[in-house]
């Protein structure tokens, strides 16, 4: 980062504990143009356009790196399309994270576990239901859709129960952020151990050994029908959340609470009810994400932890508290993760996503769509 040391105190503003009411970063940015060309370049790099250009540049560099090795362009295109699909699944988790982060102001480390529970709940429901015929080109039958519909409220209620038992008490004690973070880390291990106890440490598949042929799309892109379904469903759910947040009373109350809980309370909003609905909503979205992730790969108890970091990366890329940002951020993370597989050991996918997140945090801590200073 080409930043002269003069700006350090203002930069520290990004480290202040209460982001929502902190405008030092904002000021630093407003003042920037007055301090010569170096400052202007810094401000440009920190702007949304600058960061997007940087992300595209990283994409392009990756493309070149991938092209330098014997990887066909159409394979890269396929990977990019797969990345969009993965992004769709991640987005469901990221939006939940961003809602919780916005309303309750702490990073929920147990969100990955909620995703995993969603996948396993769907698995349990499908084990009970009779196996129906395949629906059109998809690999699943109606029982998967039924399982999805059951899993979403179940995980929503699990999230709500956790809040009632742990986080509400911490809120009433006005606990420090670290206690929330620790409690959610503990919850992540608690929920995961629950999965181990109930379903055991082995892999599970929704459909053991069922073939899932890929469709040939134009430009030689090979995609499974399931993946298209996942993307469509993810986008539909995101749209639903968007409508909920902008058109309904509860959604508006959520946004108001995220903005300023005290003010929301003064205006007669029952913040506890808002928080409860936030948990139910983000739990349900996590469950949908988990079930859909399970459609394309195996279920393992650790899957939640693997997905947690990319989801956080998406949330932070997009800007905390912004569902639209979470969608865009998750898409970017998904695409980068998949495309890095063209020239790097696929195991490093999460690492790449994560490094991108750190770059974003340094250049623009408020994310692509976040409010300045947040």
């Amino acid at each position, binding site marked *: 980062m080409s930043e002269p040391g003069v700006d350090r105190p203002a930069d520290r503003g990004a480290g202040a504990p209460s982001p929502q009411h902190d405008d030092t970063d904002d000021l630093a940015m407003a003042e920037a143009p007055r301090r010569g060309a170096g400052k202007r370049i810094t401000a440009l790099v920190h702007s949304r356009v600058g960061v997007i250009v940087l992300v595209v540049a990283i994409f392009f560099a990756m493309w070149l790196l991938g092209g330098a090795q014997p990887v066909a362009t159409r394979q890269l295109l396929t990977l990019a399309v797969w990345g969009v699909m993965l992004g769709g699944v991640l987005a469901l988790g990221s939006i939940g994270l961003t809602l919780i982060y916005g309303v309750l102001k702490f990073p929920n480390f147990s969100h990955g576990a909620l995703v995993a529970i969603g996948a396993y709940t769907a698995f349990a429901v499908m084990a009970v239901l009779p196996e129906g015929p395949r629906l059109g080109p998809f690999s699943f039958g109606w029982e998967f859709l039924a399982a999805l519909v059951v899993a979403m409220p179940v995980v929503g209620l699990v999230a709500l129960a956790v809040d009632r038992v742990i986080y509400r008490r*911490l809120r009433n004690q006005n606990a420090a952020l*670290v*206690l929330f973070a620790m409690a959610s880390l503990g919850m992540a291990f608690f929920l995961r151990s629950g999965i*181990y106890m109930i379903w055991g440490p082995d892999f599970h598949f929704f459909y053991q050994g069922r073939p899932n042929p890929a469709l040939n799309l134009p430009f030689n892109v090979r995609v499974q029908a399931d993946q298209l379904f996942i993307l469509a469903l993810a986008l539909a759910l995101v749209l639903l959340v968007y409508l909920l947040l902008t058109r309904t009373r509860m959604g508006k109350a959520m946004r108001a609470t995220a903005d300023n809980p005290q003010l929301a309370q003064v205006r007669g909003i029952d913040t506890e009810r808002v928080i409860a609905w936030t948990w139910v909503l983000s739990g349900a979205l996590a469950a949908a994400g988990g079930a859909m992730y399970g459609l394309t790969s195996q279920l393992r108890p650790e899957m939640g932890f693997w997905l947690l970091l990319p989801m956080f990366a998406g949330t932070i890329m997009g800007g905390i508290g912004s569902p639209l940002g979470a969608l865009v951020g998750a898409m970017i993370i998904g695409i980068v993760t998949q495309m890095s597989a063209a020239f790097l050991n696929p*195991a490093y996918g999460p690492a790449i996503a994560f490094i991108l997140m*750190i770059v974003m945090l340094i250049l623009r801590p408020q994310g692509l769509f976040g409010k300045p200073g947040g």
Partner: protein
Amino acid sequence: MIQEQWVKAIFVAIPLVLIGLRLIRLHWALRIPAAAACGFAVAVLLVAMLPTGILAYLVSFSIMAGIYAILSLGLNSQWGLTGHLNFGIAGFFAIGAFTSALFTMSMPTGLLANYAKQAFGLEMPFLVGVLAAAIVAGLVAFLIAIPVLKLREDYLAIATLGIAEVIRLAFQNERWLANGPQPLRGIPRPLSCLVEDPACAWLPDSLATWLTPLAQRDYIFPYLVIVAVFVAVIYVALERISRSPWGRALRAVREEEASAAMNGKNVASLRVQSFVVGGVIMGIAGALYGPYVISISYSHFRPLFATFLVWVMLMLGGSGNNRGAILGAFIIWGVWSGTAFLADAITPLLSLISDDFASRSPYLRWMLVAILLELIVLYRPKGLLQEQKVVSLFLPRELPKKVPRTKT
């Protein structure tokens, strides 16, 4: 008591004497003999009363708890002193363990070279390995600190968690570095010649004959002494620096950055310094872990064992209190080990519900420790021992309960 027991008692006595030196509050001229007498008496009693198996279990338990105590002390110097929310302890621990292993091991030769790969093997002595582990872990902490410590504390938690994952992924996938997914086997043990048949060449004959009753499996006794000495040195050093002006400046940064900066403290630099100190200590813990378990692999450095447990230890013991960090490590490692017995005990009960449940009882331990953490967070967030608010090298260690007010 036979000679073997006397030898063991001497080894067990040394850590006990170190504890005694801390607990007995007398003038040093009296404290040293008192601690020595008490430590030795307790050690003799322990060795004489306990069956061999249980004694060996207790010693291994103390070694692991001691290594965790070092991790917990390292975390305390980051979180307790300066307020860094480091969720990436596993990363520094892994770097320390692998670095010291690579420095002390020899390159695989012959047939083994086909199966085991490592970047280098320098066959250095143990202490050089520890030093290398500390330096490399500190260096990595420094490199991480520069970009990451500018972040808000919750972002720092996410970032460090991710960095630890990246480090673990690197050790898992880079076969050339440290045998990748396969464990790195045969880490040499320091002073292992004490328990071998032709004893160390440099030992005087009388000592060598005195040590002959010890068999290979009794290596844990001398290793306990090594770990105890490391814990003691790090504890004393941390106590010293947390009472120094530097330590107070760190706490000022933690409490209120703006006023620390206003008083002329270089906040950014202080934050980096304390992060590096913590990283160094965690690296040393890794260097001690390798020789104890002999073979290490990436899977030892999962967030559960290497990050989560350490946080539970420090939270229970008391953030900001070095004694608390050590106490918490022993209690939580005791709970963790104890839940293994508990899980065994309730296995028959679980098998009444389902056979699957019984075979999964090990995972109950996670659940119990997670519940314990939630209880600490809810009911005892400040831990068992609280931080001393007023510290200085020039004040008496424990202030009287009520500080007499000077009349103005």
